[in-house]
């Protein structure tokens, strides 16, 4: 922790700027703008110090390979010289052809993978959210057996994905336990809609607890007295949930959902192990990129990776907009709302402490 101190001390500033933001004094619009300018100048340097280690590490581990991948995506596969029988050692520069191909030659497979990826993401994340929130609500209420439930909820999430893929492959085997219990033989791992179902079941099982745990954390922050007040106002359980619980756990829930979306969009191991490679019904963009790379076509593989990256980036941007007010706190009214809740929390802390 020693490294915290240096930037902190160098950044000691006259407390006026921050003191002005103390609770209870709703800032006037004009003053706010001026203060924001001052805050930007002052805390900018400190922020730079605090943020730069993270950015530095990320640029080493991600930026460098990403730029390599971007450059790679402009090259085509190496050609085979029919006379010598050898693959040429240089890759031809093809410009944007790898990208253009998704509207031509490679189009069918790309768009199939694109829709599979989207379908899996939407369905699994929606189910996970519902199940995860339900889990969190139940765990929050349950007084006895809480320890057991919490241990149980962690297990699916802690099982490594590869192992979980194998496990579900055996559960969904043509003579496996799933068909035994259902009393009929569904060929889960063959091409078709049932393969999608198998992937969704396995994925939701594994990751609903992730959302459950983070929402539970959010729920515990809500004080009991908030509910008391609501009950006095005559709000039913459903109203309480919609108007109190949900808004208050929103930041935690949205961050959880965001990370789930990003993960689901890059889904690879589970369909790969559970149903198999090159299955039209479950092939995702990551699987497609992997397939190209494994056939030594690094150019198209990188292009798919870049496209997937852009797709994911769009989703992330949407979330940042949604979350911005809660997370960044720099957006006008939203920022104030965030701060006001801070006050409410503060008061409650005093009450319970």
């Amino acid at each position, binding site marked *: 922790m020693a490294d915290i101190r240096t930037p902190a001390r160098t950044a000691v500033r006259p407390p006026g700027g921050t003191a002005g933001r103390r609770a209870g004094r709703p800032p006037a619009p004009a003053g706010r703008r001026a203060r924001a300018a001052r805050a930007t100048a002052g805390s900018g340097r400190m922020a730079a110090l605090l943020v730069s280690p993270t950015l530095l590490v990320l640029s080493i581990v991600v930026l460098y390979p990403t730029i390599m991948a971007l450059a790679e995506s402009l090259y085509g596969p190496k050609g085979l010289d029919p006379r010598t029988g050898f693959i040429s050692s240089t890759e031809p520069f093809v410009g944007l052809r790898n990208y253009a191909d998704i509207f031509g030659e490679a189009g069918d497979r790309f768009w199939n993978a694109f829709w599979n990826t989207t379908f899996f993401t939407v369905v699994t994340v929606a189910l996970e959210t519902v199940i995860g929130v339900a889990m969190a609500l139940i765990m929050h209420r349950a007084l006895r057996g809480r320890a057991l439930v919490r241990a149980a*909820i962690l297990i699916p999430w802690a099982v490594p994905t590869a192992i979980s893929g194998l496990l579900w492959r055996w559960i969904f085997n043509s003579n496996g336990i799933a068909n035994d219990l259902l009393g009929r033989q569904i060929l889960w791992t063959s091409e078709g809609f049932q393969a999608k179902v198998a992937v969704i079941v396995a994925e939701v099982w594994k990751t609903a607890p992730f959302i459950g745990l983070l929402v539970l954390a959010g729920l515990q922050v809500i004080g009991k007295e908030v509910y008391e007040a609501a009950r006095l106002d005559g709000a039913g359980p459903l109203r309480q949930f919609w108007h109190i619980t949900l808004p208050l756990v929103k930041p935690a829930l949205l*961050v959880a959902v965001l990370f789930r979306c990003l993960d689901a969009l890059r889904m690879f191991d589970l369909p790969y192990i559970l149903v198999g490679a090159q299955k039209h019904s479950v092939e995702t963009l990551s699987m497609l990129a*992997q397939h190209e790379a494994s056939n030594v076509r690094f150019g198209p593989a990188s292009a798919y990776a870049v496209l997937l990256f852009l797709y994911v980036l769009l989703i992330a941007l949407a979330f940042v907009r949604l979350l911005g007010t809660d997370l960044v706190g720099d957006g006008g009214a939203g920022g104030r709302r965030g701060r006001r809740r*801070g006050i409410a929390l503060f008061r409650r802390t005093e009450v319970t402490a």
Partner: protein
Amino acid sequence: MTGTAKWRHWLLYAGVAAVVAYCLAPFYWMVVSSLRPTTDLFDTSLVPPRVSFANYQAVFDPSQGFSRALLNSLIVAGVTTVLALLLATLTAYAMARLEFRFKRLILTLIIATSMFPVVSIVVPLLKLFTDIGWINTYQAMIVPSMSFALPLAVWNLTTFFRQLPEELEHAAMVDGCTRGQAFRKVIIPLAAPGIFTTAIITFIAAWNEFLIALSMTNKPAMQTAPVAISKFTGTTTYEAPFGSQMAAGVLVTVPLVVMVLLFQRRIVAGLTAGAAK
């Protein structure tokens, strides 16, 4: 009134039972499968008629190097978690408390970096690490793991920090603390549960990483648990060592859960700011 209360009570416990069953049923199957003798591999009876620990013995056979792999996983995931948390705490504090330009952009950038598919960055990284002689080292696994651990930690910590009232720090600063001291003495203890939750999440993500760990090592002594599991074989190429893979799965999962349970009181119970005291 008591009727409805009782009814609600039962409903709640039905819910608890449902959650437990949902989470544990497939895991139960994993445990049961790991306890079946290999000859009963395809058996689908819910309670195995014969129980054998042969699969567990197979996992810990010295040739698998599984205990060493567990230790390696612990080191890699542990160091990744600690480093990610250290860096992320600083960044998340800036995100949650300071006003500066490009904040949204930086936050977006941080999350964007975690989104590039690993399959596409592994070859450039391998080239880089081969050049600087990092193959078969812990840092070759730890540093790339930061690419997903760090964004996860930054985002989670930012939400947790923002949930803490800013006024607490201001009070501390009025009492003569510097910003850094206020942060260390007020925010860190209050946010400890949030930090622990983040640590667990990061730890599990790093613990389960496979492709990087596989590519960056070629010595058995350096492999992590998921890599070791991928090398389980039957006695012939085609034979699926399902039983011992499941046994290994149980053995990788259980220590994690135990560890989380040990931290549990601090993590979840203490998540409210008040209870952290």
